[in-house]
């Protein structure tokens, strides 16, 4: 009997690591020839570039037991059973998904959990092993301790033993490549290969998601790269360069949670504090065409401190703006300059003026950063950051990571966002190329359709014809650049459509940033079109609020205010051809209940006054840049 038990233990330790290797290999590899690309992007595709599964060291510790296969099935619209045993299903499937598990310690907590206890030597690991086996609450505690140890570079060596880790990562990566390929269906659903490069300085968040354009054959030639603790991810970019050179493939990286970087994500200097060189700026721009502007851990568009004249600034900043990711270094207001995307766009212009290259010419997307294998961004179907905060009556009043007492409350989590990509087909190649040219936008969850074109001769009459075709023929789409062209100001076609199962639109704004000759940066928000314009007259530069139909007793709203679609052609009234500028679009929905309000009704909660229950969800487009020749 005992012999059998020991055999079982040994077998377990082995199978848990090799599981999936013998799994039947993908049947239809690579991109099928049958998918045709359209002449120009006709359709917007919705996805998540940032999802964690049980392979992530922290996700497993948080209690996530769903592997990449379950994550992919869920994203494709199938019902799955969550880690806490609840049935979960998206109201609408996604078009694409990037499972981006942490490279560092990939599969380590699962390996620890599955190991025979007698094989564990380190006292810290033994403690975490025991906690993880005791139950979900203790497992959260273990993970909180693990994250703290990571922040202070005090992880037990055995957890990061390079030889062990390399072996484990290779096995998990191979199984992952198989699964992702099995669920990639060109033309219908794109499953990308990728990983997260969790770069941190102390607790300052400098994380990146890495996404490959290529098929299994190429990507299998590499394994995910472990981060070190440098200030700039030069080692990651070296890895990406080496991958592209040796395989002929393509790869990009997307920074996220600049809001938790304490000003380090978008620096004005080089990593040593000296002036940034043009070569450094170009290197960054070449590898990182897009940033993640919104997700569960807050929104990084801008902060009220940076944009005091923007009445809609500060969406999803509260709670995330007081400290860095791991609460190891309080945030000072001056840090905000390097932490928010609008400011980064301005810094980019300034640097370009000074050194001739713009490191921050970035497009934007939204994503989830869910650690539950469930890519949910709808407030009425939100599954939380991790299994500890999957739907339950306590999650609105719990800490962000229950058991990790850091003063960040879970109600401050946003229901995250999605990435919208204007592509010529739903394939890895077409979606990737669209990200590369920044023809993408982000929303805080709702699937609004937004078009944005810049050119020199658009007029209101263009909206009467096939304006999308004109947009591409006579202008540039979001993500593009306008070069100086003699006289006149640029004009922009902007058109937004509500989510077919969501709320009406309040207004469309164009946000302009520029840098003057003296080297000072500026920003201005223009309301360009809004609902009921005849009744809501602008006065003193402000458009009256759209109103509010939210009923908190039932967590509902009415589309009796706002408009299903808003479109206009806008010419910059303050254009100066000698001045560098960017323009991006922000679309605001009418007020709706947030996920906490839905929870409050579902679980009959009484919540404190400080808890936010309503919001105006939004879409942010990538910019169109203007530079004097």
């Amino acid at each position, binding site marked *: 009997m*005992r012999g059998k038990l020991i055999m*079982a*233990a040994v*077998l*377990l330790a082995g*199978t*848990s690591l090799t*599981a*999936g*290797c*013998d*799994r*039947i290999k*993908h*049947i*239809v590899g690579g991109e099928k020839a049958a998918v045709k690309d359209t002449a120009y992007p*006709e*359709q917007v595709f*919705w996805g998540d570039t940032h999802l964690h599964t049980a392979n992530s060291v922290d996700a497993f510790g948080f209690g996530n037991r769903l592997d990449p*296969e379950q994550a992919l*099935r869920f994203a494709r619209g199938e019902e799955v059973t969550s880690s806490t045993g609840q049935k979960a299903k998206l109201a*609408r*499937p996604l078009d694409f998904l990037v499972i981006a598990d942490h490279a560092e310690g990939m599969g380590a907590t699962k390996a620890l959990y*599955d190991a025979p206890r007698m094989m564990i*030597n*380190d*006292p810290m690991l033994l403690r975490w092993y025991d906690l993880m*086996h*005791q*139950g979900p609450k203790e497992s959260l505690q273990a993970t909180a301790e693990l994250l703290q140890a990571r922040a202070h570079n005090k992880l037990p*060596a*055995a957890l990061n033993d390079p030889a062990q880790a390399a072996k484990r990562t290779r096995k998990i990566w191979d199984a992952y490549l198989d699964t992702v390929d*099995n*669920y990639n*269906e060109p033309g219908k659903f794109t499953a990308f290969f990728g990983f997260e490069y969790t770069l941190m300085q102390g607790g300052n968040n400098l994380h990146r998601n890495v996404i490959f354009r290529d098929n299994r054959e190429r990507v299998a030639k590499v394994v995910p790269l472990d981060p070190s603790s440098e200030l700039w991810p030069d080692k990651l970019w070296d890895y990406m360069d080496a991958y592209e050179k040796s395989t002929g493939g393509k790869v990009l990286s997307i920074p996220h949670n600049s809001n938790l970087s304490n000003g380090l994500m978008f620096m004005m200097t080089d990593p040593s504090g000296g002036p940034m060189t043009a070569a450094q700026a170009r290197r960054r721009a070449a590898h990182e065409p897009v940033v993640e502007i919104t997700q569960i851990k807050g929104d990084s568009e801008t902060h009220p401190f940076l944009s005091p004249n923007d009445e809609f600034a500060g969406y999803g900043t509260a709670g995330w703006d007081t400290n860095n990711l791991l609460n190891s270094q309080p945030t000072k207001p001056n840090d905000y300059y390097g932490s928010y995307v609008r400011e980064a766009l301005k810094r980019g212009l300034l640097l370009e003026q000074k050194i001739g290259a713009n490191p921050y010419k970035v497009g934007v997307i939204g994503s989830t950063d869910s650690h539950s294998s469930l890519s949910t961004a709808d407030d009425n179907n939100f599954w939380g950051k991790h299994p500890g905060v999957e739907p339950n009556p306590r999650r609105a009043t719990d800490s962000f990571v229950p058991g990790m007492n850091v003063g960040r409350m879970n109600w401050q989590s946003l229901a995250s966002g999605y990435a919208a990509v204007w592509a010529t087909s739903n394939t890895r190649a077409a979606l990737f190329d669209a990200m590369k040219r920044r023809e993408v936008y982000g929303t805080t969850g709702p*699937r609004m*359709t*937004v*078009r944005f074109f810049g050119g020199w001769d658009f007029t209101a009459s263009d*909206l*009467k*014809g096939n*304006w*999308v075709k004109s947009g591409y023929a006579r202008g540039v789409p979001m993500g593009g650049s306008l070069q100086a062209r003699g006289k006149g100001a640029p004009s922009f076609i902007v*058109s*937004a*459509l*509500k*989510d*077919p*199962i*969501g709320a*009406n639109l309040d207004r469309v704004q164009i946000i302009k940033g520029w840098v003057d000759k003296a080297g000072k940066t500026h920003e201005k928000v223009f309301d360009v079109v809004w609902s009921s314009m005849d009744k809501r007259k602008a006065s003193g530069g402000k458009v009256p609020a759209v109103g509010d139909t939210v009923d908190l007793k039932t967590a509902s709203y009415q*589309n009796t205010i706002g*408009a*299903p*679609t808003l*479109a206009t052609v806008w010419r910059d009234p303050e254009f100066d051809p000698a001045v560098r500028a960017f323009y991006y679009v922000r679309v605001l929905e009418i007020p709706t209940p947030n996920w906490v309000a839905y929870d409050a009704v579902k679980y009959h909660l009484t919540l404190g006054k400080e808890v936010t229950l309503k919001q105006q969800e939004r879409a942010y487009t990538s910019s169109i840049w203007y530079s004097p020749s």
Partner: protein
Amino acid sequence: MTWRNRVAAALREPIVHFMLAGAAVFVVLAGRAPDLGERRIVVNEATVARLGDRFVESFHREPTPAEIDGLINDYVREQIYYREALRLGLDRDDEIVMRRMRNKMIALATSEAEAAAPSDTDLRSLLDKDPGRYAKEPQITFTQLFLGADSPAARATALQAIAILSRGGDAGSLAQPAPLPAHFEATPGSEVAAQFGDEFAAALPRQPRGRWTTVTSGLGLHVVRVEQLHAPASPSLDAARQQLTNDWHNQAMRDAEDTAYRKIRAGYDVVIEQPK
């Protein structure tokens, strides 16, 4: 001399023999006659080596012979307590022990399914169970004009548009300039639903062919002409092979735990006595 040599030397030391003998005595004194196998503790070289490795990892130096003795002593002590505890049944009411054993059994059960591959017969029977799931989606070709939120004014515009369109005219100027294509060629129903909502996708096939009608969606009011419905061909095993394999595998993983449980469960007689 490395600690391994020291271990080898230590194993020849009388103190170790004495200690093992002591352990044996403890076992004998603890109760019933020793049953070889159940009651024999052999500290072999591999075990001692592992104990030494563990020491090095924690203290970053090699253990002294005395420390190795200590480690062995403690190992034997743990084994003896563990076996005695099992013998006394102390594991039986321990929830943590039970949960760990249960997890190990589940992992054992599912590891086989993880590696399994379906036959064509497996896939065929899955396909026959739900052919609709594995068929290509029905597609639809239609043209639409979006007139904004549904309102009496929009309804009036719709009538106007239908009149113009029915004469073969161009009513494009009556439409709202929304980011929606006018024409959809052989578009799968799910894509129509993604852009217009389920209600609209469901309504389209019910519209008369080749005639302009009004249809509402999650966006508002549309004037629509459905040109063609493309019925899907019946699904083939080869075309759906990947999806079938994925579904089979997913189900196999789910079933594995259930099946294993039912097999073991069959060997038990479970009596439940509800409190009166």
